[in-house]
């Protein structure tokens, strides 16, 4: 009998040597005459343990990690093929690991468990039930399910998904579009990538359901060029889905059509903004459009278009399969369901943590994260990507919830959390925020285009100021500039770059040479 061994194919696992580990396992198994079936799964999300090797046993999967290629022989000596525990890297049954067991995995339920490119595996683990249900419903009923679930856009803006879908559903047009925003450019974010690499059929199913709900018959997934593995996985999955009749002119024999294509970005951060993304899809520079008109009414090629983030669309199959009430049963207040949180930067146990809204940053940083990787005190935590505020320790007990964070001038964004230890220079990080904005600004509006460059200059002068008087002047100037950017920018690029800058200034004035 052949032993099934899993080695992830997720890019984060590949980046730390998963391919070499897989090759070593095959080599070692052959040399020892052990029959091994190697499966390349997605990542379980325990990224500090990657490459995480799992062995299927009668009692479930047993985990070893982080494994290096040169560990493999010793692991076999210690009984790897039987899932034995005589090696230091033996972690025990994967599902019992507290880091994983304490999560509430809805969207990530299959990621790391199935073979991402096997439609049979997807079906065997509940995939396809949402589409089957959707095919039995009228479009307006699908929209109502999504509305009732309370699902809000997971890309960062948190707009109610059902309302967006209803707008497109109600808009009369011969051609409508579903666009998936997979331009996941926020530092500290990788949940979109993990879904596309680890469970691409879920995203495809979500997009087909969105098409059925709104009457859109064409879809595009706009994936950033920095994600070649995600692009390859999606393209393979789309081909399989088309063969299986999940895409094409007659979805599941319903007579309804949906076509889907992957489009590759070209290294522009601002193309994660939905109107810039549409411009890019139309073959132009990724310049932000003024709103209105809303993309839901005049979007791609001027037609009604749903633009949703990967995680938003990936949540839809489950909402249809289990019902809106099931999904809305998670979370708190107006933040319903779960948020796939990404814990990154200077953290001991970083990775993907899916939980209902309401967990606190302190729990994430210490219970899950185990403190900083460097062992030094954590100083600042940036939540929500490069446009998100630095959250100081005094706010670590706030529940992760859209409204609670908005209340302190912070954002949850896409759920990326980047941890810095006490050596972080917050004035430098504030300068970086302005510099990144200058680099990535599309240039359409003046506050962003000019303000970001002036922001770098003002922060340089503030840091180099000779005395308190000069510092005070520069601080006033910086605050004034930030107010102009917040109020006057066309999109979140210029409008939110001041969030990290001002939060650094407010909570860490010493780093700017200012007194608290």
């Amino acid at each position, binding site marked *: 009998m052949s032993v099934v061994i899993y080695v992830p194919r997720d890019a984060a696992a590949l980046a730390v040597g998963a391919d070499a580990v897989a090759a070593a396992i095959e080599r070692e198994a052959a040399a020892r005459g052990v029959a091994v079936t190697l499966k390349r799964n997605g990542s379980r999300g325990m990224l500090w343990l990657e490459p995480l090797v799992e062995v299927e046993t009668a009692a479930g999967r047993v985990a070893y990690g982080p494994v290096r290629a040169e560990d493999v022989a010793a692991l076999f000596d210690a009984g790897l093929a039987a899932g034995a525990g005589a090696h230091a890297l033996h972690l025990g049954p994967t599902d019992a690991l507290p880091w994983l067991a304490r999560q509430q995995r809805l969207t990530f339920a299959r990621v790391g468990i199935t073979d991402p490119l096997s439609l049979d595996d997807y079906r065997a683990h509940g995939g396809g039930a949402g589409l089957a249900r959707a095919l039995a419903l009228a479009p307006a009923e699908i929209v109502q399910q999504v509305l009732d679930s309370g699902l809000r856009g997971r890309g960062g803006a948190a707009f109610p998904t059902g309302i967006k879908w209803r707008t497109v559903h109600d808009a009369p047009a011969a051609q409508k579009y579903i666009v998936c925003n997979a331009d996941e450019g926020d530092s500290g974010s990788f949940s979109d990538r993990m879904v596309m690499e680890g469970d691409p059929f879920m995203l495809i199913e979500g997009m087909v359901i969105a098409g059925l709900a709104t009457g859109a018959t064409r879809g595009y997934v706009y994936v950033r060029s920095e994600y070649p593995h995600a692009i390859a996985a999606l393209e393979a999955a789309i081909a399989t889905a088309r063969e299986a009749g999940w895409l094409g002119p007659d979805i599941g024999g319903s007579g309804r059509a949906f076509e889907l294509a992957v489009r590759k970005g070209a290294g522009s951060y601002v193309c994660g903004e939905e109107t810039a993304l549409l411009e890019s899809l139309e*073959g132009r520079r990724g310049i932000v459009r003024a709103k209105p008109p809303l993309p839901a009414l005049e979007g791609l090629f001027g037609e009604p278009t749903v633009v949703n983030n990967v995680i938003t669309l990936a949540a839809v199959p489950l909402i249809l399969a289990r019902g809106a009430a099931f999904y809305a049963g998670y979370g708190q207040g107006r933040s319903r369901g779960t948020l796939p949180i990404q814990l990154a930067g200077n953290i001991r146990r970083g990775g993907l943590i899916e939980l209902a809204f309401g967990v606190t940053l302190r729990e994430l940083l210490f219970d899950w994260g185990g403190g900083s990787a460097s062992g030094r005190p954590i100083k600042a935590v940036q939540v929500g990507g490069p446009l998100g505020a630095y959250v100081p320790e005094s706010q670590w007990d706030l529940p992760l919830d859209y409204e609670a964070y908005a209340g302190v001038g912070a954002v949850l964004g896409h759920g990326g959390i980047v941890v810095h230890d006490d050596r972080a220079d917050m004035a430098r990080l504030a300068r970086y925020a302005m510099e990144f904005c200058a680099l990535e600004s599309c240039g359409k509006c003046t506050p962003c285009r000019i303000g970001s460059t002036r922001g770098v200059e003002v922060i340089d002068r503030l840091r180099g100021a000779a005395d308190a008087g000069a510092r005070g002047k520069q601080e006033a100037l910086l605050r004034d500039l930030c107010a102009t950017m917040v109020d006057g920018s066309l999109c979140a690029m210029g409008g939110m770059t001041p969030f990290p800058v001002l939060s650094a200034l407010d909570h860490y004035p010493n780093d700017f040479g200012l007194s608290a």
Partner: protein
Amino acid sequence: MQAVEKPDRGGAEVRLGSPGELREKLRSLVPPPLAPAVAAAVNAAIAAWRDEPGGLLPLLHAVQDALGYVPPEALPAIAKAMGLSRAEVHGVVSYYHHFRDAPSAPHRLELCRAEACQAMGADALLAHAERRLGCGLHGRSADGRVALEPVYCLGLCSTAPSALLDGQPQGRVTPERLDALLAQTLGAKGAAAGHAAPGRPRQVAIPSGDRPMYASDEGQT
């Protein structure tokens, strides 16, 4: 309309030249035909994407994937096929960081400069790479074999600092590991027998030094 005065040419007579000379001059203004390899790649990309709505980006990707860059001399043909002006195509090529208008070095090292990697020592790693290669960001190594480029997030933020070496993702990149990876890629001639395999996660030492964030910052106050 007001009459426009002709500029004073200082009395120098403008000599137009003989008809033969004129023909020569005009001919020199016509761009030379594309090199066969460029023409083949561009024509294939045009054929594949001309009729696709919004096909310019995939077309440019196809050209760059085939040639390693988007040759400026190919823009007129692309513009004509797509019904665009040359300025519009140039605008797209120059807007996106991904597209290059000249060939890259044989090897590319892209270091992530974003926050999660900064929190794990990306600045020190960049400083090391600059010393090792003898060039700054956007530069080429002293021997011309490696292009050093920044990248802003690879989505490998829990295994930081991250890099791409010839398109392959690399995580937990310490200076020692970077040396070993480069030696492996460039041929280990004279290189220390480092181990290119990634280490386990561990406590990282992040120098708190006063080094500015970018090489280009040097000299700024």
